[in-house]
């Protein structure tokens, strides 16, 4: 069925059009929206686009980086200053999907997708959104918890602090098909160190709940400690707390619960 495509020059106009029409869907890279249209999803009757340059801007030089929602994974990979985000970007799809898919769209991608968002969640990112109310910043965790109710809001950009060192940020995606493939589980850890102790640990998990979640019990096990074997073991055994994975073709809920601690232990101990 044909849909109406509305193209706007500014993000503000696009946000206005989105918030006033329940059947409108914003088109980022289209890798999921076009798939839905090809499948005959009749809940979409309007597609909204914005050609605003601000949506594809990358500001990566300072300690706090800002990425426009329309930045693709291929662009992240081409940016040397974004090296800490290369592993999550590289873990997504094949080359064509990375050329098309955007980080804004990834915030909405359901399981087994949304890998980049796992990294952003561990980095305590901030999401700038625009709606009928104007624009505002919202913490990524709050954003994800209310994701189903975000229809009608346009994501403008995502920002986060650059990790202090390569060691401080780690990412791991478990997939059956390599080098591409949906996530069995995805893990990211941000471990800032202050005076030899972890201060502000963040562990984020993908495919362990309906949206990406923080593993708070594991974070608590790490907080204020040094990253030794006992601490790692405690964090790994707490990894399943608060999770609610589901069964899909890539793995059962049982299997996901079994392996998440194993992979968290490997991630924290720096094993391949």
């Amino acid at each position, binding site marked *: 069925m044909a849909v109406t495509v509305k193209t706007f020059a500014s993000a503000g106009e696009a946000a206005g059009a989105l918030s006033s029409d329940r059947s409108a869907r914003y088109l980022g890279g289209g*890798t999921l929206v*076009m*798939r839905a249209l090809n499948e005959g999803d009749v809940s979409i009757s309007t597609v909204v686009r914005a050609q605003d340059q601000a949506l594809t801007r990358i500001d990566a030089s300072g300690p706090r980086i800002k990425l426009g929602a329309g930045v693709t994974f291929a662009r992240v990979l081409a940016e040397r200053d974004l090296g800490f985000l290369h592993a999550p970007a590289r873990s997504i*799809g094949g080359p064509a999907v990375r*050329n098309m898919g955007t980080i804004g769209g990834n915030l909405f991608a359901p399981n087994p997708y949304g890998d980049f968002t796992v990294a952003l969640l561990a980095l305590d990112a901030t999401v700038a959104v625009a709606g009928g109310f104007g624009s505002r910043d919202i913490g990524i965790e709050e954003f994800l918890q209310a994701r189903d109710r975000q229809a009608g809001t346009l994501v403008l950009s995502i920002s986060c602090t650059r990790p202090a060192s390569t060691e401080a940020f780690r990412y791991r995606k478990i997939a059956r098909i390599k080098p591409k493939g949906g996530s069995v589980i995805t893990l990211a850890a941000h471990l800032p160190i202050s005076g030899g102790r972890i201060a502000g640990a963040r562990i984020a998990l993908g495919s362990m709940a309906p949206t990406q979640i923080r593993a708070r019990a594991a974070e608590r096990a790490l907080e204020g400690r040094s990253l030794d074997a006992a601490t790692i073991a405690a964090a790994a055994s707490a990894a399943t707390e608060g999770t609610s994975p589901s069964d899909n073709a890539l793995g059962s809920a049982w299997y996901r619960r079994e392996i998440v601690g194993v992979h968290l232990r490997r991630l924290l101990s720096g094993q391949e």
Partner: protein
Amino acid sequence: MSKIPLQFRHNGRDVAIFVDGGTNLLVALRELIGDMTPKFGCGQGGCGTCSVLIDGELHLSCLTLAETVAGRFVETLDGMKQGPNLHPLQRAFADNFAAQCGYCTPGMLMAAKALLDRNPQPSRDEVIEAISGNICRCTGYEPIINAILAAAGGRVSA
């Protein structure tokens, strides 16, 4: 619903067509321009046989909203041959038995061209990575990988 005018460059030639809202580029190329070289496999982004180059970048035409290519350069397999001669990649595919049923071949060739245009001497791993979004049901991939390495002038391992 009214038709939307769309102009872009298709294999070095300007084309002007009218599309319905929501039409994907694969449908526009096959049904409106008559370029049957990009194939329809899944319409889901999963098989890669509809791959084309947009401004030199590999894209899945089944997941591209046709309107988004306005004013841009779209290359398909149809534009690959060089005058009466096959492109070195096409030649290498033929010489290395890299096609059986041939259904995946257009997408494989576009993915390979995107790679070699950017990186003329890729490693074997880079070739594998470059075609990782393209599924072949027949060859087992080895002949395809060898063909791409051969076209690149790389050593073809046994």
